């Protein structure tokens, strides 16, 4: 499901607690972050092809904002996807909203168990995932996605993730490299991958190109639930109609990506994007799997994070075609650059960036878009 905070209010205590509880209950939760417009919330629900869309509202603007979200959902062919609302909704508005088809509303008086159970219940319709439309099938969606129908692409990606076999996927998508340049971004947690990707996306959009992104986050090996927060780091760019972001839980796979990441990128490619990105879980040097799906792999590091030690080990440094030293305003950046030069025999580009100010982003994009797809 997608949980979105719609409107200008910043009360995120409830939504944060709830995301954790839903994850514990085995649900994959994509959190959009603060200050979402109705259009952005619905776009996220479409791209992520959710079974449930959750809106958190504390600003008393629900009577204006909720109908706008519903309109947008209809525009994406997702009127059937249940919407639940959390926040402060006066009783009389509860009735009005219910009449418009809102599946459930939760306030501080509802226990977490009740909320989680209700969400699980509405996520299933007639024994099937609530995301599925009444008619249509994978062939139809795939054909539509090939003509650039993003809403259909969302459904194709879900099919790849859950309902398909490897053979079926290969017969539909093939197994070759993508037409568009496919760039994998990896690096240890905390190095600033999502923020940097957001900056890079902005720059690429500035150059008039469309982009597809698969953002991989870890899933809990125990409950299967996951908290997918990469999207929240991309506010401001996620709303752009020429940017398509799909979050994906690693579902127990090691190596930084999910089993179906490659197929998802190929489906995006078939739908027609100028560039494709995949953001790995960020386990550092174990993220070698990304090489199999991305033509260009960018390894991000930052000064003072012990990355210099990692450099000496075989693995990730050997599969990267581009190195980024992020947070280059911190002390030790030049030292780290020198170490990379020393350890890596290949003549690879090393680019210094400061996500906070956007320094180095343009140079990085130049390299990424011109990189050989070897």
């Amino acid at each position, binding site marked *: 499901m997608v949980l979105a905070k719609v409107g*200008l209010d910043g009360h995120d205590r409830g939504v*944060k607690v709830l995301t954790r509880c839903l994850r514990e209950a085995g649900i994959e939760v994509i959190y959009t972050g603060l200050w979402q417009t109705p259009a952005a919330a619905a776009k996220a629900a479409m791209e992520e092809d959710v079974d449930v869309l959750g809106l958190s509202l504390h600003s008393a603007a629900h009577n204006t904002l909720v109908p706008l979200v519903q309109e947008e959902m209809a525009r994406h062919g997702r009127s059937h996807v249940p919407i639940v609302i959390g926040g402060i909704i006066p009783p009389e508005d509860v009735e009005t909203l219910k009449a418009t088809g809102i599946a459930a509303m939760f306030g501080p008086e509802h226990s977490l168990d009740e909320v989680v159970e209700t969400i699980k219940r509405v996520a299933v319709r007639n024994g099937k995932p609530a995301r599925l439309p009444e008619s249509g099938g994978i062939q139809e969606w795939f054909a539509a996605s090939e003509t650039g129908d993003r809403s259909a692409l969302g459904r194709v990606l879900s099919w790849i993730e859950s309902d398909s076999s490897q053979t079926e996927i290969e017969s539909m998508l093939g197994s070759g490299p993508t037409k568009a340049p496919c760039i994998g971004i990896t690096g240890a947690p905390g190095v600033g991958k999502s923020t940097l990707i957001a900056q890079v996306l902005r720059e690429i959009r500035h150059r008039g190109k469309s982009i597809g992104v698969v953002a991989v986050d870890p899933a809990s090996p125990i409950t299967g639930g996951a908290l997918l927060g990469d999207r*929240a*780091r991309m*506010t401001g760019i996620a709303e752009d109609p020429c940017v398509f972001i799909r979050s994906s839980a690693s579902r127990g796979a090691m190596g930084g990506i999910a089993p179906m990441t490659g197929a998802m990128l190929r489906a995006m490619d078939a739908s027609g994007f100028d560039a494709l990105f995949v953001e790995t879980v960020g386990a550092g040097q174990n993220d070698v799997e990304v090489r199999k799906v991305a033509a260009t792999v960018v390894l991000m590091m930052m000064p003072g994070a012990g990355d210099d030690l990692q450099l000496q080990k075989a693995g990730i440094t050997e599969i990267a075609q581009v190195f980024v030293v992020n947070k280059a305003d911190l002390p030790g950046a030049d030292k780290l650059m020198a170490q990379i030069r020393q350890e890596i025999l290949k003549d690879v580009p090393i680019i210094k960036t400061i996500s906070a100010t956007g320094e180095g982003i343009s140079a990085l994009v130049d390299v990424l878009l011109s990189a050989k797809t070897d």
Partner: protein
Amino acid sequence: MATELKHEQKEPEFVTISGRPVKAVYGPDDLKEIKPEEIGEPGQFPFTRGIHKVMYRKQLWTMRQFAGFGTPQQTNERFKFLLAKGQTGLSTAFDLPTLMTRDSDDPLSVGEVGKCGVAVDTLKDFEVLYGGINLGGVSVSMTINAPAAIILAFYIATADKEGVARDQLRGTCQNDILKEFHAQNEFIYPPQASVKLVIDTIEFCAQEMPQYNPVSISGYHIREAGSTAGQELAFTIYDGITYVEESMKRGLDVDLFAPRLSFFFNAHNEFFEEIAKYRAARRLWAHLMRDRFHAKNERSLWLRFHAQTAGCSLYNKQPYNNLMRVAYQAMAAALGGCQSLHTNSMDETLSLPTESAVTLALRTQQVLAHETGITNTVDPLGGSYYVERLTKDLEDEAWEYIHRIDEMGGMIRAIESGYIRKEIADAAYYDSKRVNNRERIIVGVNEYVEEEENDIEILKISRALGEEKARELQSLKSNRDNAAVTKALADVRQAARDGKNVMPELVAAAKTYATLGELSKALEDVYGRYDGGNLW
């Protein structure tokens, strides 16, 4: 029979709402390590027992109800209503677009104009908002953070136009940006630039508005976001440390501005722990100001605070129960020695308060002040084994956090690393789980539940208001001297670029009727915009 069963299931562990274990009895042994001079006398260092010798015998706390909704005209009427009912200070709530520096005609403001507070765009709105109220005679507080410097400039410009001398202005601007990064999420510019703006206002007020409190260092929102009492205390005090450090870096004499720093704490349900929290806060601050910052003026050592009862403790099930919660919380604030108090209205989980609900909330304070006798003696719980022990424990917990944040390189670094948010989110999660598992009982919510019809009256804000406000703004924009506005905005940008105090330029720009959104954009052009850092 059913009740007995439920009691048997109750966890045998006794903890406060913050998860602090509580013993069955406290006695002299619990006070062994606490020296009498660490407690001190009222009005004496370290001010554990209060900043004044006789406290409420001389002057009651200020009863200050937060108010604001709809148009400036509507809020002006509510202000006059509250003053007529005996309220002694004004407190202004702004709507979300204003808090987020969005004008009423901004696309992101749709549906939110005037909803949770009053909508203001320009000096024109301020002239109406405080029209007919003598700004030299009443203390006015304003709850505004990211755009505080701009809003304060509007306020100063209003006073200037009405001929009220700046040194006569009394009141408080919340202006505590650090807690926005911790908890409330109403930030615009990156942390460092945001703090710079706060220091601009501290400096400006120290020079021109000696009776005005430029910042109210707030734990309230940290607690509302789900922190423990100890975290609320520690993070708030550390935010205070940060403002003092940054002001001193600018070359300001600590004794020039520190006496005007004020604090704002939550008054939650855990009666004794709350009282201990306020006592520990005073002691911590006095020590910090004396020992870390070498303040000489006794007033610099005083921690003066406003308290508000906990919004997060109220429920819309059996809403009349909220009256009792608020009354106990208010009593804790008074026993803890607050300087001013807001009592929440019982209907606030549903909407902004109606006039009758807000009157009841004010009456709650008046009954407490005049009928219970708790104001007759200073710090009546001083010396209590339990309260003194709790005070010490909270103080120790806060010191631990302070040292940890020191080691991280200060509050801005701690914010950027996501540490503070993570601590608060963990505490919120722990508490939500306890409520969910009924280890913490909430009357009418997870125990003593009844089927009920909700019959309380709710305040309505007209939906047409936003459109009307946007139209008014459009008309103002086409009738003002736009060349003057452009020039004033350029001056603001230049001052920001030069690293100067931007207050004089903001006041000048306010007088050209530049809008809040335009002024904020000018600052954003220089400082950039912050995306919020790590989530949790």
